[in-house]
């Protein structure tokens, strides 16, 4: 009876955790759209959405409802399967990354220790990197299947942009990995819990990673794939109703996940200062740690929005020059300096 020997509690626990994380990222993404408008309004000295519900808080629901009920149009000369596949991939890939982020330490409920991380694989960072490199397929397939020249141009822009900025991102991560000596995100957080945050050791690496995260999420000032004044709207030009919603939503989920990732890798994750000196109970500490991570993440999301409404969009050649001629040499130099310092400290 092998069936009975499966640890059912383990499976239930993981399913519950996955659902909670998924719902959480969807809700955060939903309210990021509201937050984005409020931040934009605040920066531009306007009021922002304030009709639906108190402070416009029901606005995302109204938008979602509108998207669902809109007419669905599939262009006649597009390949139907790929046209639907594009936004599906974008959405799926955006949701997958949350699996390896440690959302908190472990909780003890009824004698069971439950880790607030879905999968503590020992290649955590590489997993994220692999999933992120998949993200471009959603845009590329969607853009090509639309059978529209503007969409195609946008998806080609997206592909070259994402490939170009993956390189300095990887190089910045290598420097971080040399420092921590582990690819598991949980280990990285635990090290920061007992020492200083990684941003102290890796300020340049953090900066490079941040810029590349903007580029990978297609956020302003790197939102060339959806530059509406050149491309009539970008890779999602032909999309309508919820398929368009998926593309837009995937962008906000990506933003949430990359903010969580930046806080985990460079800003201590669920660790906060004097965490172990408070003498609090383990469960309470875990919850406080989760809140700390959440506040850090929201801070980065706010930063993403702040930059979007402050910095104008790059021109395409400027984008490429920044990626290949500034970011990569900087990241290489950062890697060499880190390596030399580590070597010098060992001797």
């Amino acid at each position, binding site marked *: 009876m092998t069936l009975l020997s499966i640890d059912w509690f383990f499976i239930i626990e993981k399913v519950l955790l996955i659902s909670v994380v998924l719902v959480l990222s969807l809700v955060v993404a939903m309210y990021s759209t509201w937050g984005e408008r409020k931040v934009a309004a605040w920066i531009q000295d306007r009021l922002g959405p304030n009709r639906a519900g108190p402070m416009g808080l029901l606005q995302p629901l109204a938008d979602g409802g509108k998207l669902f009920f809109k007419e669905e149009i599939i262009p006649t000369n597009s390949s139907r399967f790929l046209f639907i596949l594009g936004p599906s991939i974008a959405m799926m890939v955006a949701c997958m990354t949350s699996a390896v982020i440690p959302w908190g330490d472990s909780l003890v409920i009824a004698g069971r220790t439950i880790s607030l991380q879905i999968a503590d*694989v*020992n*290649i955590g960072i590489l*997993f994220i990197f*692999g999933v992120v*490199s998949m993200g471009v397929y959603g845009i590329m397939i969607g853009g090509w299947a639309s059978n529209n020249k503007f969409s195609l141009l946008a998806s*080609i822009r997206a592909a070259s942009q994402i*490939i170009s900025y993956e390189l300095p991102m990887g190089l910045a991560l290598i420097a971080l990995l040399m420092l921590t000596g582990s*690819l598991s995100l949980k280990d990285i957080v635990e090290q920061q819990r007992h020492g200083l945050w990684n941003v102290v050791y890796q300020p340049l690496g953090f900066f490079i990673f941040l810029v590349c995260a903007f580029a990978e999420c297609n956020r302003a000032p790197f939102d060339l794939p959806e530059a509406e004044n050149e491309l009539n709207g970008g890779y999602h030009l032909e999309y309508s109703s919820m398929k368009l919603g998926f593309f837009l939503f995937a962008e906000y989920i990506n933003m949430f996940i990359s903010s969580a990732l930046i806080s985990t890798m460079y800003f201590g994750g669920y660790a906060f200062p004097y965490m172990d000196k408070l003498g609090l109970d383990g469960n309470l500490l875990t919850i406080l740690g989760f809140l700390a991570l959440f506040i850090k993440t929201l801070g980065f999301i706010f930063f993403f929005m702040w930059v979007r409404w402050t910095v104008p969009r790059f021109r395409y050649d400027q984008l490429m020059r920044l990626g290949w001629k500034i970011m990569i040499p900087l990241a290489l130099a950062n890697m060499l300096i880190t390596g030399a310092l580590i070597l010098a400290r060992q001797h």
Partner: protein
Amino acid sequence: MVLSVIALVSALGVVLSKNPVTSVLCLIVTFFTIAGHYIMLNAQFLAVVHIIVYAGAIMVLFLYVMMLMNLNAELEPQKRNWLKYAGAISGGALLVVLVAALRDASMPALSTQATEIGLIQNLGQLLFKQYVVPFEVSSILFLSAMVGAVVIGKKD
């Protein structure tokens, strides 16, 4: 088992599909199933690197070129007959050689558990201690290929 079936079907799809873009997408699926095999052999690092490098970078460039060229079945030039025969003969010859080579090869069954060699720590130790010379030589080879590509690209 299921993974192998998907791998074979999608590999056939690469060859048989009329549309080049569908071919490339089938190839991506094939790469994913191969990565799945790696994971089942407990070689997580190899699997993820396989996805990052092949599916994430190389295939994106493939797709990029295919989309730009916008090939389709009607535009493809009609191949000459002797070209088809030559292709069939050389493919058959390759098959014969492969069969002859594989006939005598002994294949010990791989144990699917308890091989720790694919984990990143052991792999790194091995690469930088035992196989450091071949590793460096192959990286120089890549460097020369990159320089070559730049030189060819600069000409016009």
